[in-house]
Structure formats: structure tokens, C-alpha cells
């Protein structure tokens, strides 16, 4: 066993921890918030509020 073997175990452990944190957070969010709210994003919202695709001289 040298430092590289320990690094291999550390990488396995860190991977497992990160995967667990990410999945647990996802489950928490999915069970806390309404799916309709989570999927409420719409394309082009900025254009609707700030950058209308209009040219003064055309429209």
C-alpha cells in the first residue's frame, strides 16, 4: 500500500459522497416543490421584459 492506493480509495469515497449529496438534494427538491413550479421555465422571458425584437423604424 502506497500513497496512490490511498488516493484510489479516497477517490472512490469522495465519488460516493458527491453522488449521495447530489441525489439526496434532488429528491429533497422534488418532494418539497411542486413539479409545475420546477418546470415553469419558459424560453424568451428576457425578450418579453427587456429586449423586444422590434426595430423602431420597422414597427
Amino acid at each position: 500500500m502506497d500513497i496512490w492506493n490511498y488516493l484510489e480509495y479516497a477517490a472512490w469515497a469522495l465519488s460516493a459522497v458527491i453522488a449521495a449529496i447530489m441525489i439526496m438534494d434532488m429528491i429533497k427538491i422534488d418532494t418539497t416543490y411542486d413539479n409545475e413550479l420546477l418546470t415553469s421555465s419558459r424560453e424568451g422571458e428576457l425578450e418579453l421584459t427587456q429586449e423586444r425584437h422590434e426595430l423602431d423604424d420597422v414597427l
Partner: protein
Amino acid sequence: MSNVSATAAPERLGLLRVLGPAHVWALGVGIVLVGEYMGWNFSVGKGGMIAGLVACWVAGLLYTCVAMIDSEVTSTVAAAGGQYAQAKHIVGPLMAFNVGLFLVMAYTMLEAANAITIGFLLDTVAGMLGHSGLNQKPFIILTILALAWLNYRGVLASLSFNLVITAFAFAAIIVLFLSVQFGASAVPLDFSAVTNEPLPYGWLGIVAALHFGLWYYLGIEGTCQAAEEVRSPARSLPFGTMAGIMTLVIAATLTWYVCSGLIPWEYLGSAGTPLFDAARVTGNSGLMVLLFIGTVFATTASANGCINDASRAWFSMGRDHYLPEWFGAVHPRFRTPYRSIVFLVPIALIFALGAPLDQVITFSILSGLLGYTFMTFNMVMFRKKWPLGTIKRGYVHPWHPLPALILLVLCAATYFAVFLGYGTQLIAMLCFYIIASLWFHFWRYRFVKRGDQFTMPWPRPQGY
């Protein structure tokens, strides 16, 4: 499922608009710069030094056209999904579905290739330090998961991280060039092969080299995926993209110059890490450390940018119901497409752990190439449907339709080059996209709410 927090949260969740032009630059260059550190040099192996340089500049021209076209269209279609959103608005749903798949496949496979490379680099270091037979798998998995987690937590942190490590990797190339120019190398630059063996495999060698010339710039079009998260898309996207392609042309030329001058072309053509190998040839330990860190940073930045881009494309397709709507969710706190990010992790792991590197890279290049081909007629249709003066553009590219035509010709030449080396993969890839298109047309499209996909307040196109 409860609604406890729905009332406290805003009525509608969207991706967070926090990015500036520097982040756009970091996303585009970050994905690509790894191509300077490895992969491009196979073009030298295919056709010699001159062919390598021609491939570098011809591919540079191809990608300059890509950057110009993308800058104009994306500064108008400022939506996550980039070219997918462009295709949806300009061409139609079936094209959009295909472009979305091109993007997800290209970026996910590139991410897998980067993770494999990090495993290989660590194995090399372990070998140099006396440890043989390093198990690369835990490091490959950790790379993908850690970067996915960073992306999950927020786009600002993720792309700020990319900005720092990409800038470092670019600076490392500049430092190597300057050091070699000012005598820090124990071995002088030698370009005698340019005159002695200009084209060892003839003109066909130049065509064959084109395939790997793409490596210098593959992925710069990824800047478009940030469209929905930049504060000012009309300004930041063209600025970040054009600055990105200029950076890459400089980095590519310097890379070819230093590596070709220090390493004989026969060895350079098959080197695993050409810039690091060039630093080793100089005999300067400081340069060796710098270029090794640069290689690791460039690879990490590429994987990080790929996770960002693949998840945005997948999220956009889910939001439009081209895929299950479940994927179109935004995290209420981090404001990221968290379900798409998590879903793509096992896909990347399957490619990283189960497929050979060259096959993964080839499928990534082919998906990218199909996307570039789409851009040519997309641009022509965009100018035809919304001529100048009928819609607000953040950037207008010059000499239309010349860049689109040049791009089309160069794409055709590259298809031929790919066919020479990887004809089976090219045909397999096309079959995959044809089957996916049939599935979308005959089954999936029934779930798409026709009006909901087009929420941009655009003027009606000419002729409609």
C-alpha cells in the same frame, strides 16, 4: 408531493442571468483548449508538418465561419440550447430535435474523453513516481461527479472556475512559446523537415490531416449554450465567441510552431500529450511542471464546459417536450437544470468506462460536424426569413453568404477526411440519427404542444 414552498417562491423559475463576456469566453475556450494540449498532433502524423499547419489554419477558417454565424444568430435567439433553439425557430422541429441530439452527444462524449484523459494523466504521473498499474476508474468517476456537482450548484461558480483554469492553461502555452524563443530550451527549434519532407504522404495527407485539425477548435460553438444565463446576450455572446476564436487561432498557431520545432514530426504525430512532451524536450523542469498543470487544467475545463452545455441542450429539449418534460426543471435555489445534469452523469460514465478513447472522440467529432453542416443552411434561412432590418441583432456578420458557403465546402472536405479513416463510424452515426428522427417524427412529436415551443416575441418571418 407537497406545495409547501411554492407560495414563497417566485411564480416562475428560470435559469439565473449572472454571466458576462468573460464567462462566455471561458466556456468556449475552456471546452476547446484541451485540443491544443492533445489530439491535434495526429494531423501531423497523417500528413507531415506542412499538412499539420494547413489543417490548423483551414480548420481555423472553418471555425471562424462557425463563430461569425453563431454570433449573429445567437445574439438574436438568446435561449438555452443554443443551436437547438436556433434550429427550432428557423428550420423546424425535426431539425431541432436532431441538432439537440448532436449537441448532447458531442458534449457528453467529449466530457467522457476528458475524464479518460485525466485518468491517463494520473496514471502517467504515478508511473513516473514509481507506482505501476494505477486503477484509473475511481479518478474518472470522481472527475465526472465532482464537475457535475459544481455545475449542479450554480453556473456562476462553475464558469468562474472555468475562467481561472482556462486562463492558466492559455498562459502556459504563451509562456512555453516565449521561453523557447528566448533561449530557455536546451534544444533549438528545428524546422528542417518543412523543406526536407514537406508532404511525406502527398496532397492526400493534407485532406487526411483535416480530421484532426478540428481538434484545435472543436467546441467553440458551445458559447451559445450560455445564452439564457448571460446578463446581456446581444453584447456578451458575440464578444465572448469572437474573442474565443481569436484566442484559439493564436493558441493553435503557437502550439504547432513550438511542438513542430522541438519534436520530430514522426514522433509528434503519435504523441499523447504534445505540449507537455515539448516542455520535456526543453529540459526545463519549470516548464515541464507548468505544462503538466496546463494539461490537467485544460482537460478539466473542457469536461466542465461540456457538462454545462450538454445539460442546457437536454434541458431545453425537455422544456419543449421534445423529451419528457421532467428534464425541463430548474433548481429553485441554484437555478440550474439540475435533473438534466444528474441524468447525464451515468451516460458520461458509461462512455468513459466502457468505450475506447479514439471511438468516443470520433463520435464526438462526427456529431459536431453534423451540427456545423446544419449551421450553413440555418444561416441562409435566417437571413431569408428575417432579413437585416426586420429583427434586432446583437451582431451582423459580414460578407453573407460567403462564410456559410466556405463552411459548407470545408464540412464536405472534412466528411471525406473522416470517411477515409472512420467510414464505419460515420455510417453508424448517421444510422443512429435516422432512427432517432423516425422515433421523434412518428412517436414523440405527438407530446409536443405546438404553440408552447415558440414563446419568443419575434416578428412574423418573411413569406409567412
